[in-house]
Every structure is written in C-alpha cells, then in structure tokens.
C-alpha cells in the first residue's frame, strides 16, 4: 500500500476494573474508502474495540496498551493519548459511530430532529434552520417515508428500526472520514438494510469514507466489506480480504461461523391448505393507532395507524413468524397479543390455555385472569437493554418471574436461574452482574432466558436473535426448537432475518405499513413469492457469498411506495386490496 492507512490499531488491550484484559493485542488497519468488517462471537469485544477508537469507554475500562493512529491525510494523530479537547473535534465530525442499541443511545427528552441536527450545528456551524434541510434529506435517504414526522418525534414514538435509522442518519450527516457502524442494520428489515448499505456505499464512493462495520450477518459482510477481521474472546482469530475469509476460511472458528449461516429455501413442497384445529392465539381484526403529538404549541396532531386489521392465528406447538418492513407494526402486534397494549375497539385477541378450552379474550381480562394468562404467555423484547432493569442483577432478573408467580423456594429459583443461563449459553458465574456489563448479544440472551423462566405455553419473540452472532444464534434457535418440541411451546416470532424465519417458522406473514400483505408457509413464501414486497424482501436478502449481488430493481419495486406497486397490488389512498387466498394456504393482498 502506498498511502498510509486512515486508521491503524496497534496492539490494543483493554480490561475492565482490575480484571484481565477483555481485549488483547488487537491490531488492524483501515484504509481510506475501505470497509473493514468486524465479525465474531457475541461478547468478543467488538463494541469495546470500536468505543476504544473514539475513547468513549465506560469509566471503569482501562486501556492497558496499544496505539490508535488516525491519519485523515494531513498528518498522524494518536487517539489514545490525544487531549480530550482535540479529540472532541474529531468525534462526530471525522469519526462517527452508530451505536448498537439505538433506543438508549438517543436522549429520551429531545426530539430526533434536534439530536441529529446538533452534529451539524456543532461541527459545521449550521443554524437550526439550515441544518434541518440537510437532516430531512438524510432522513429521506435512510428510508423514512415521512421525514418530517420523524424530525418531530421523540425516540419512544418510533419503532426500533426507525430509531436505528435515525442513529445512522446522525452518524453520517457530517460525512465523516471514518464511520464506525456497530451492527447498524440489526433492527432493520432486509430492504431497508439494503437501502442503508447502499447509502453507505454511495457515501464511500462520494467522499472516500472508510467504514468499520460490526456485524453478525455474513451476507452483509459479503456484500459490503473489503476486508474482514474475525474476533473471538477478545482476540483476532483471522483477518483478510472478504473473498479469502468467506471462501477459504483457515481458522476453525471462522469455519464454524460460516457453516452456521442458515439459508433461505428455494424449493417448496406442494402447497397445502392450512387448517388449524388447535389454535393457541388468535388476533382478529386488530388495529392500533397512535395519536402523534404535534409540536408543543401547534395544533397538528396526526394519527399514526401502526396496525390495521391484522388477523393472525398461531397454532399450538407451532411457530408463526412475522416479517416485514421496519415500522410496519410488528412489535405493536406483539404487544397487543400479550395484552401490553390495547387494540383499537373492534379488535379481539383470543388465547386458548389448553386444547379446546374456552378462549380468554386477552384485551378484556381482569387483573387476576391477566396474571394467570401472563404466566402462560411471555415475551422476548426487541430492545434487551431497555427491558432489563438497570438496577437489578442478573439473578434478580431471572428469578423475578418466578417470584411474581410464587414458584419454588429461594434456592430452587436460584437453581432455575443458573439452568436458564446455561440454556442460553451464558456463564452462570455472571449471575451477579448488572445488565449494563454485558454485550448486546449477551443481553439478548438474558432476555430470552427470562422469558423462558416461567415455562410459558406461548412465547412472543420480538427479534430475539438479531444481535447474536451466527454460532450463538444457531444455538438459540436450536434451543427454541428444542423447547417447542419437548414442551409444546408455541411462538409468535418476529424477525427481519428471512433465513432464521425460514428455519424456524411454520407459517410466515409479511407485513407492510401495518398490514399483512402475504402469508404462507415459509417454503412456499420464499420459493414462490407473489407480492412485490415479499419479492423485494427476498431479493434484498444477502447471501454470505461474494458473488451474489442484490437485484436492486426488484428491491426498488417492492420496497417502493405501496401506491407504486403493480396495479393489482397497489394501495389507493384508503383503498387497500383484500387479503385473498390465491392458492390453498397462500394469502396475498391482491385485487382480483
């Protein structure tokens, strides 16, 4: 290489407290315009590495050794020893970062727009007004259908994916030299992910931005990265160009990772009519609208119709998966299904505690009945950070459901907690930790473990594996399948990862703009998609191979506005085609 690399990480070792280093002797380079993917096991230190570059590690972290040299072209800067004030000028301007957990990385009390435009005000000397234009532009590009609304919203009014996109917009708005993206697309559906990735690429082409991309998704790696660094247990296992790593992995761990990647089926068994005789959960005509507040003093309150007329039936012992656009109302559906939010009048949720027992109407249960219901139906939250109380230790978190329902003695509960931790492949020795001392993936597993504690009959999983690396993801999926088989658990499974869905689901519904647009068994759906949006999803799905590239046209058609879809599918204002059974067991929102 003739030019000095943009960033050189040399021999970086970091530890927490007095413990042994969590990261030891990490070295890698990032050249200008290049994308380096950091992949590896959950908890292997990827996030820590990224934060170390910006020097925003938590206070108890110690950098034991190493240098980080940043060279934007006008001389080398050593970031580890640089004075804080100078470093501040770099942050957000020349180096910016997308955090893994967007909900908590945004201030709860400030509007999204203000938080994003602040970067411009800080580093580019913009005023609020001029910044707003740029921000809205950026919002458009990260795929917000209504940038104005997002600009005005508070974080808690947005879906997980929307927050993540806001975060991405914030990181990219100043067109940095180096973008550190910590799992930037985990919460995004594949079409949006494709959009984001191409946005990053565009920017790279435009400004020569370099990217450090932390991801679990080998498909993403294959499609975007130039080079790959594989990490495990705080050490680099293997590093090299994408092609080399993906096609000729040398290290055992890399091989294992690649093997663990699930794939979307391309063949289907003959279509069969779907008949449910033992349902456990049924959502009938469920809608949900939110009043969105206008500005504090403006009259403009609009209504967001998050979910519109959704019907879902989950069969006992089976998995019903929901995939779809980010912000299409999946999480809302899930919350409604468990009674955590009430549907708009007219919607009914039924739950059958046992086969052919009389159904409970979840939306109108009294508190005691609700508690009984909640014992049987649990949820894994999309946002593990937020759903774990920051002031409770793991042991308290895991035993809490048992305590609530007064199950077992203290020591039994404790044993159960240990068992649960082991089930999700976490070390029981971590029982005394607080949630914030875990990596993103570890937290997600905690969340799953907690949901399993009560041995529920129905589990609603909102993106349970999005933050997990492939090997752990496989483990978790296996675990879920196992439990399904042994305990007859049923799942309502929400995910963006079509491969995961195809593996675990018995039935898949695709949602867009609060509505189901297509529904079928996974093999049918993935091999013979009918709806343009489904097609776009599949097209946007990235394969972990360097050769396969995205069919951007298909993506563009399907992911575009519903009004622009081919006639028979298109939504016209409030007119929406009905969900029709085109073949037995295959529902498509189509006009016939």
């Amino acid at each position, binding site marked *: 290489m003739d030019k000095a690399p943009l960033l050189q990480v040399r021999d970086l070792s970091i530890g927490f407290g007095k413990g042994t280093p969590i990261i030891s002797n990490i070295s890698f380079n990032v050249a200008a315009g290049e994308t380096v993917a950091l992949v590896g096991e959950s908890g292997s230190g990827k996030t820590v590495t990224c934060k170390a570059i910006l020097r925003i590690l938590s206070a108890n972290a110690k950098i034991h050794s190493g240098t980080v040299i940043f060279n934007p072209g006008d001389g080398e800067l050593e970031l580890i020893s640089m004075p804080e004030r100078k470093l501040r000028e770099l942050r957000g301007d020349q180096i910016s970062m997308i955090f893994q957990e967007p909900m908590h990385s945004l201030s709860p009390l400030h509007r999204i727009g203000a938080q994003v435009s602040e970067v411009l005000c800080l580093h580019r000397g913009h005023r609020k007004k001029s910044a707003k234009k740029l921000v809205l532009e950026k919002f458009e590009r990260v795929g917000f259908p209504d940038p104005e609304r997002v600009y005005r919203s*508070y974080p808690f009014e947005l879906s997980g994916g929307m927050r993540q996109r806001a975060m991405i917009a914030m990181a990219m708005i100043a067109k940095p030299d180096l973008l550190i993206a910590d799992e930037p697309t985990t919460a995004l559906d594949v079409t949006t992910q494709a959009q984001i990735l191409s946005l990053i690429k565009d920017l790279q082409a435009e400004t020569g931005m370099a990217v450090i991309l932390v991801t679990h998704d080998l498909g993403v790696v294959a499609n975007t990265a130039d080079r790959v660094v594989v990490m495990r247990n705080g050490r680099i296992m293997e590093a090299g160009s994408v092609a080399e790593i993906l096609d000729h992995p040398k290290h055992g761990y890399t091989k294992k990772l690649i093997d663990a990647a699930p794939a979307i089926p391309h063949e289907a068994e003959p279509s069969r009519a779907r008949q449910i005789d033992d349902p456990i959960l049924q959502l009938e005509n469920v809608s949900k609208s939110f009043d969105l507040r*206008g500005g504090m003093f403006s009259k403009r309150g609009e209504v967001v119709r998050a979910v519109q007329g959704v019907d879902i039936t989950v069969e006992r012992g089976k998995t019903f998966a929901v995939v779809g656009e980010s912000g299409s109302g999946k999480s809302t559906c899930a919350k409604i299904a468990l009674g955590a939010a009430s549907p708009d009048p007219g919607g009914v949720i039924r739950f059958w505690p046992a086969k052919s027992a009389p159904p409970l109407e979840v939306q109108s249960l009294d508190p005691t009945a609700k508690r009984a219901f909640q014992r049987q139906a649990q949820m894994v939250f999309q946002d593990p950070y937020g759903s774990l109380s920051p002031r409770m230790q793991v042991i308290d978190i895991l035993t809490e459901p048992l305590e609530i329902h007064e199950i077992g003695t203290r020591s039994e509960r404790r044993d159960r907690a240990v068992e649960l931790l082991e089930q999700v492949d976490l070390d029981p020795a971590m029982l005394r930790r607080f949630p914030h001392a875990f990596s993103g993936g570890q937290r997600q597993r905690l969340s799953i473990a907690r949901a399993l504690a009560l041995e529920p009959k129905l589990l609603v999983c909102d993106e349970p594996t999005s933050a997990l690396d492939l090997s752990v993801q496989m483990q978790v999926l296996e675990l879920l399948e196992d439990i399904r088989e042994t305990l007859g658990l049923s799942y309502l499974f929400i995910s963006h990862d079509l491969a995961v869905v195809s593996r675990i689901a018995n039935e898949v519904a695709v949602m867009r703009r609060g509505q189901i647009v297509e529904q079928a068994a996974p093999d049918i759906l993935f091999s013979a998609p009918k709806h343009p949006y489904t097609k776009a999803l599949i097209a946007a799905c990235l394969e972990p191979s360097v050769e396969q590239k995205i069919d951007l046209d298909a993506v563009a058609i399907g992911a575009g506005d519903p009004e622009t879809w081919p006639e028979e599918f298109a939504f016209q204002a409030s007119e929406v085609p009905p969900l029709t059974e085109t073949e037995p067991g295959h529902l498509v929102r189509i006009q016939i």
Partner: protein
Amino acid sequence: MEILRYAVFRFFTMLATLLVVSALVFFIMNLPPGDYLSNLIAELRSTGQDSGVAKVEFLRQEYSLDQPLWKQYLIWIGFWPGPHGFSGIIHGDFGWSFEYDKPVSEIVGSALWLTVLVNLAAVLFVYVVALPLGVLAAVRSKTWVDYTSALIGYLGLATPNFLLALMLFYYGHKYFNLPIGGLMAPEFEGEPMSAAKVKSVLVHLIIPTFVIGTAGAAAMMQRLRANLLDELSKPYVETAKAKGVPPIRSVLKYPLRVAFNPFVADIGNLLPSLISGSVLVSVVLGLQTIGPALLTALKSQDQFLAGFILLFVAGLTLIGTMISDVLLALLDPRIRYGGRKR
C-alpha cells in the same frame, strides 16, 4: 395547543382546589380558642378600659364574628351577605385587620413587595448557587470541588438560621462594615429608585438572602448532584460524547434536563417553603415581610389578616404547582399526558 388546553384545565382545577384550601385555612385558623376581639376585651379589662369593651362588641357584630363559623367563612369569601351586604374576598374586600386597624389590603400591600423581593433574591440565590455547584459536584464528583461544596452547603444547613444570621451580621459589620438588618439604608426609604438605592438594597440583602437561601441551595445542590450522577452514566450521554458535544454542554443539555425533573416537580413548594422558612428569620432579623406579619396576626388571632396571608401563600403554592405541572409536561414528553391508557 394541547398544552394550552392542559394549562387551562389545570387552572380551573386550581381554582376549585383554592376554594377547598380556603375553607381549610379558615377552619384551621379558628382552631385555637378565642378570637382577636375576646383577647382585646381581656386586655382592655386588664387595663381598666372597660369603655372599649362595648366598642369591641360592636366590631364583633360589624365583622360577623358572632355568626357560626361556617357562616363567617361564607361571608369572608363573599358567598353570603354580611351586615353590609356581599363583601368578601371574591369581591376584592380582603377584610379588616383589628391589630393594625387598617384594611388588610393596606398592610399586606407594603409587606408584599418586600416579601417578593427577599424571596426572589433567595430563590435566585438558590438557583444561581445550587445549579452550577450541583452540576460541578456531579461532574467532578469525589474531588475537592465536590467535598467543599458539600461541606459549605451542610454547614449552612446545620447552623440554626438565626444563629447564622447573628454571626454574619456581627462579624460582617465588624470586618466588612456590612449593615446590620434592614432592607436598605434609611435615607433611601421612600425615595425614588436610584443607582445608590439599588446598591444599598443589594448590600442589605446579602446576609438575609444568604441565610434564607443556604438551606435551600444546599438541598438543591445535593439532590441535583445525586440525580445527575445517575444520568451521567446513561448511554445517551455517550452518544452525545461521540457526537463531539463539549462536556459542559453535553451535561447541561441532556442529563441535566432529565435530572431536573424532581426539581421542576418541586417548584410549587419553593416559594411557600421559603416564605414559611423565613418567617422566624424575618422575625428576628426584623425584615418587614409578610412572614412576621403572619406570625403576629396568628398569635393575636387577627383573623382576616392572617386568613388573607394564608390564602395568599396557598394561592402561591397552587400557582407554583400548576406552573410546575405545565413545565413538567413541557420538559418530559413521556409525562405529557398524565394518565396512561391501560
């Protein structure tokens, strides 16, 4: 718009509450046995001025003190006609002070602006001192800045106000030639505003403000520090840092706003607690605020005066609470709509 509707709604609930409070105030005030006029009669008798007694009896009728308590209340408020027709608080007639032999409005008027002045100064002091020190103590927690500010704050808290005042006055006069007591040099009293007068008022305000304000400032500082420390470790602060927001601003803009929640909730309490907290100090320091007026009025059971002051302070509390509610809604979008849909 919605916030306006909310504010209007709060305003009307406030009026209703005020009515309830006024009744309570009136009855509590009448709890101790006797009333001003019977005390006066006793005193007149003791000084052998029996002739005054009949005069007092006349007053008793004049001000309806011979009526049952509930009727007295209604007359006071103005919902019931007194001997001279409707004339109550709601008609702008605040009643008569027996002690001063003047309409209540005249007495309270002059004390009011002093009260407002002293308390405003104290509130200002509280905020001006507590905010930066609290933030500093949080940001630099466990350093000498933190410890000294805590020490000074607690010194103020742990010294009885009056003792503190006396010490400050005595040594302040001895070593810095600060004036002892009063609110301005006498030559300025009643004079039109001038730079010299303002300066004199300011100099006189130093010690009272300090004495009344230290407790509040120390309390606010420590609570702010604690709340802020909680927020400072939240991930969104990290985001701000990653954005390159300077440390001061990243503290002021993000966590401080969250940490401020409990203080905004407490605004309603600030003024009345300062007023009641300053009563005793004002009595000994001879500040002519409504605090001492209230105390003497209560002691001598000069009921219309006491009643009005109490009602006034209650009104302040309620207005403060209302403001704080509206501010809370403005401050934290999550609270904005009180009730949650379940």
